[in-house]
């Protein structure tokens, strides 16, 4: 079972995962907002900068559409991993990762975990008990740890 958390000040739901972009040979841990309203998982500029993503190396462009309007984004195959609550199992998801263009006014916004991954989980969302839990219904890779 995966475990998320709620921000103390904001009350926002978060879940941490490891993002790996094989073509760019970069990886990093990311604290995602757990966003059932996001169609896809979206890496925001601050996390992209922290991961040292070279935007000149990104080719496939797309756009993201939110309440602030439309913004340029890139799409890159990526693997996202989560560790279970007991720390003895890793679950991997192979996705098309959206990466927000740094020109967008989104530097302060956390990255979003979208339904490309959430749809593959069975989620308990209980803010009053401070519980955000998820069973993995399906994944693309799984590693048992000793």
């Amino acid at each position, binding site marked *: 079972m995966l475990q998320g*958390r*709620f*921000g*103390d*000040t*904001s009350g*926002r739901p*978060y879940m*941490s*995962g*490891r993002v*790996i972009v*094989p073509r760019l*040979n970069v*990886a*990093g*841990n990311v*604290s995602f*907002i757990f*966003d059932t*309203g*996001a169609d896809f998982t979206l890496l925001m500029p*601050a*996390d992209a*900068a*922290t*991961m*040292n993503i070279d935007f000149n190396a990104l080719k496939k462009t797309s756009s993201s559409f*939110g*309440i602030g309007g439309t913004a340029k984004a890139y799409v890159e195959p990526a*693997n996202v*991993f*989560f*560790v279970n609550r007991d*720390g*003895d199992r*890793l679950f*991997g998801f192979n996705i098309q990762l959206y990466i927000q263009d740094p020109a967008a006014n989104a*530097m*302060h*916004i*956390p990255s*979003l975990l979208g339904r490309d991954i959430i749809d593959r989980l069975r989620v308990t969302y209980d803010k009053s008990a401070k519980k955000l839990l998820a069973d993995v219904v399906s*994944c*693309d*890779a*799984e*590693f*048992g*740890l*000793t």
Partner: protein
Amino acid sequence: MVRDSTEWLGGSAQAVAESLVDFTKSAEFLSEESSLVQEYDQKWIGVCAGEVRAVEDNLDALLSSLDSQGIPRSNVVVRFVEREQRALFL
């Protein structure tokens, strides 16, 4: 389903799991330590292993500070701290 970890992770699954567990603890520290909001309002901070390791006015300076300390970025939770939370509609 179990896959070859090197193909997917570029290394050891154990190391990735340990890194994620440490990162999650830092993220929880950031979520639960409300004094950080008072102390670092309008600053970028980097939290690693339950400690604030860098504080700067902008993200580039923060990342440079982490790099100069030899702290792996992937282990650091980076956030812009706001005392007055703006409503977020995504």
